[in-house]
């Protein structure tokens, strides 16, 4: 219930742990952040160093989750051989309420990856591949990022709305699950705010 109460709050949630950049903002309006929040930075810096590539650190997350890698809401990191990565944060309230955000990066490539779909039809296993992000719904200019919104996404981004953009020859994406207690409109608003607040974390030399 406590989590639900947090979710029901408006901009005041900016003052919760989910959005450390707003702690000092007395007006209720959040100032545009310029750096990765101190308590989250170490994890994102380690990731950038490990991949030898720039990653994007959020400065705001939808309540109740935060973006502290290794923290309470960390849902795992996976890094593939090609250095593409997935960083996931999840709050789950049984039976079926989630706040689930995924951050992705595909260093050195801009093409949308393909996902495999496996179905059993008439006793035969059928494997097909399809774009992992599809049904583009226009571009959005958010801070310094021009992102394309995709409404149909595969794999761990299924049921998510996803924003993807290119930066220096790499593809990046952030997605959030459309599921109670969130509506589509709230997820879009959350993604707008998350992407607007993203800051680059470069690998330390």
């Amino acid at each position: 219930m406590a989590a639900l109460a947090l979710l029901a709050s408006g901009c005041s949630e900016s003052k919760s742990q989910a959005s450390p950049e707003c702690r000092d903002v007395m007006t209720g309006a959040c100032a545009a952040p310029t750096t990765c929040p101190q308590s989250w930075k170490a994890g994102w810096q380690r990731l950038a160093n490990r991949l030898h590539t720039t990653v994007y650190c959020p400065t705001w997350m939808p309540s109740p989750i935060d973006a502290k890698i290794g923290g309470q809401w960390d849902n795992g990191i996976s890094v593939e051989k090609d250095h593409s990565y997935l960083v996931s944060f999840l709050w789950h309230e049984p039976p079926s309420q989630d706040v689930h955000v995924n951050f992705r990066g595909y260093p050195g490539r801009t093409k949308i990856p393909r996902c495999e779909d496996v179905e059993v039809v008439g006793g035969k296993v059928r494997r097909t591949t399809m774009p992992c992000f599809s049904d583009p719904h226009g571009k959005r200019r958010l801070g310094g990022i021009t992102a394309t919104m995709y409404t149909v996404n595969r794999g761990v981004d299924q049921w998510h709305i996803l924003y993807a953009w290119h930066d220096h020859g790499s593809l990046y994406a952030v997605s959030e699950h459309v599921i109670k207690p969130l509506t589509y409109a709230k997820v879009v608003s959350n993604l707008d705010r998350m992407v607007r607040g993203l800051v680059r974390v470069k690998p330390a030399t």
Partner: protein
Amino acid sequence: MKLTRKQLLVGGAAGAALGAAGIYELVDKLADSPPSDAVAARLPEQHLVDGMRVEKQEGVEVVVPLRHHEVVTARVVAPRGQLLDARASLAAVLAKLDADFSSTPDGLGLTVAWGLPYFQNHVPAAAGVHLPFDRRARKPALFDAVRFPSDPDDTLLEDNDVAFLFRSDNEENIRAAATEIADRMKGALAVTSIRKGFAGQMDGGKGLPKEMATAAGVPGADLIPDGSELFLGFTSTQRNTLGPRRIVNFETLGLVDLGPRSYFHGGTHMHLSHIFEDLEAWYLNQDFRDRVNTAFRPRLPVRPGTQTVPQPPSRASSESDVRRDYDRFGAIGHSSSLQPASRLQQDVRGSDGTLYAKGTAIPQRADFNTLDNPFFWSADPKRDRMGEEPAAGLHFVVFNPTSDDFHRNRLAMDGVMPGGEKLVFAPRAAGQGFNSILRTTHRQNFLVPPRRHRSFPLVELKS
């Protein structure tokens, strides 16, 4: 505009619910009704509405659906000895409504359909003689609905005696007619359910389905394409996918033996069901290409964003086309799988003299979107599992020549071909057309008598 619960649902007695519009009042606030210049006329058939507009959408001829729809179901509660009086009363009120409203979009389309329980319980002897018989199926033309392979185990098979289908571009006409019938038939009919809904008229803007679903806060509503006729984003009423006017009459295609006096000549069969639609799953898990594959046919070439996909008779799928898609893609499209059962497989000269060409559609659909959960009002909310929140769905109304003809169509949608071959799918599998996002809650088959026998059919022959 967000609606309050009070605006969404109207509880209480059937009479109050018949006179209330609830959320559907919004339909007229969201769309202007164009005037109809159709001429009023009384057809022998009850299921036809005159003066339907036909417009071109994306280069395809589309029959513009009526904006407001309502179905009222009821049980006959008149004592056995008073059925003739009840018949006279209903006939009188129907005649008055015929006089008050033209049978056109701006007037009122009113269809009275009778369920098997009525014939079995109130006029069994006469029904045994006069109910039409399906020669092809070797079964009565009207039999009980069944749960189809993709239906949930808890789909309710209903046992209403009668259903009144009201259609109009003017909601006030429906309200007046439904209230008048209910008032006049007190003591003879007991209302069991009221079902309401709407269809978009593709007249610009966001479109009624999207506006209504968004106002109701239905999950997935924001993703409905602007301007679409129905929640699922494709135009369903193109001329080529609806049967020509008299093709579903019992007598037209020669499927039916009408019995010694052809009592039901000019009548037809109606199936009524309610289906929940999972809009979020449809729009978040299936991209446009998937939705075309699912709604029409795998790999059908369609320009992205198209809502009205041409389906001319010449491109109707055969059983072998469907089988080929199944073998190649492990999937069958909704329209494609239906067509071997729902389209004529050869030219047929109808009893009305019309030559119906191979590939012509037979069923006349009158389905409409709804936010009922599952009904606007129910006399038995527990049995009907009435929910409090609005829910995206469809009241599926379709006219076919017989129950068996409808069942053939519906089975084809589940991969059971008219020739009996079964394309194996798990229930509601992704490859099985729309089924993965649909959940049917209620079903019933009805017989639609011709206009002259629409009031308590066969009662006058009882003695």
